[in-house]
C-alpha cells in the first residue's frame, strides 16, 4: 500500500521534471525547476524501494545509496549554478513580457 503510493507520487515528480525543462525560457528558472524536482523524485523512489524490500541486505545497500544521493545532489547543482553566475549570465525578468 505505502509502496504503491510512494511510487505513484514519484511518477508525478518525474513528469513535472520533464515539463519544467521545456516550459521556461530563462536559464536559471530551468536550473531551479528541473534539478530540484529530480532530487525529490530520486529520494521518493529510494524510500519506496526500501519499504518494498523490508528488512534485508538490499535495504541496507539502498540506505547507503540514499545517503550518497542526499550528500552529492546539492553539490553538483551548486557547482553548475556557480559556474553560470560567475561567468556573467544576467538574470532576466520572465513573465512580464
Amino acid at each position, binding site marked *: 500500500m505505502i509502496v504503491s503510493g510512494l511510487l505513484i507520487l514519484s*511518477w508525478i515528480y518525474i513528469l513535472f521534471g520533464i515539463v519544467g525543462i*521545456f516550459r521556461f525560457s530563462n536559464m536559471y528558472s530551468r536550473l531551479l525547476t528541473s534539478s530540484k524536482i529530480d532530487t525529490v523524485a*530520486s529520494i521518493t*523512489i529510494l524510500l519506496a524501494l526500501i519499504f518494498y524490500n523490508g528488512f534485508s541486505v538490499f535495504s541496507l545497500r*539502498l540506505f*547507503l*545509496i540514499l545517503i550518497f544521493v542526499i550528500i552529492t545532489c546539492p*553539490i*553538483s547543482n551548486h557547482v553548475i549554478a556557480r559556474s553560470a553566475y560567475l*561567468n556573467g549570465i544576467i538574470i532576466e525578468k520572465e513573465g512580464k513580457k
Partner: protein
Amino acid sequence: MLLQITMVLLAAAMFASLVRMIIGPTIWERLLALNLISAKTLLLLVVHGVYKQKIILLDIAFTYGIIGFLTITLLARLILAGGREK
C-alpha cells in the same frame, strides 16, 4: 507491474533530457541535461536491480553515481576556468 512502469517512465525522461541537451542554446543547459541523465541512470540501475533481485547491480549503481558526480564537477570547473578557447 509498478516497477516496470517506473522503468519506462525513467527511460522516457532520459530521452526528453537528451532532446534538451541537443537543442540547448548555452553550454550550461547541456551540462544540466548531463546531470539529469546521470541521476536518472543511477535510479534506473537501482530499480532494475530490485526487479531482478540481483545485488551486484546496486554496487554498479553506486560506482556510476560516483563517476557521474566527478564528471559534473570537473566539467564545471573547466568551463569556469575558461575552457579550451582562452
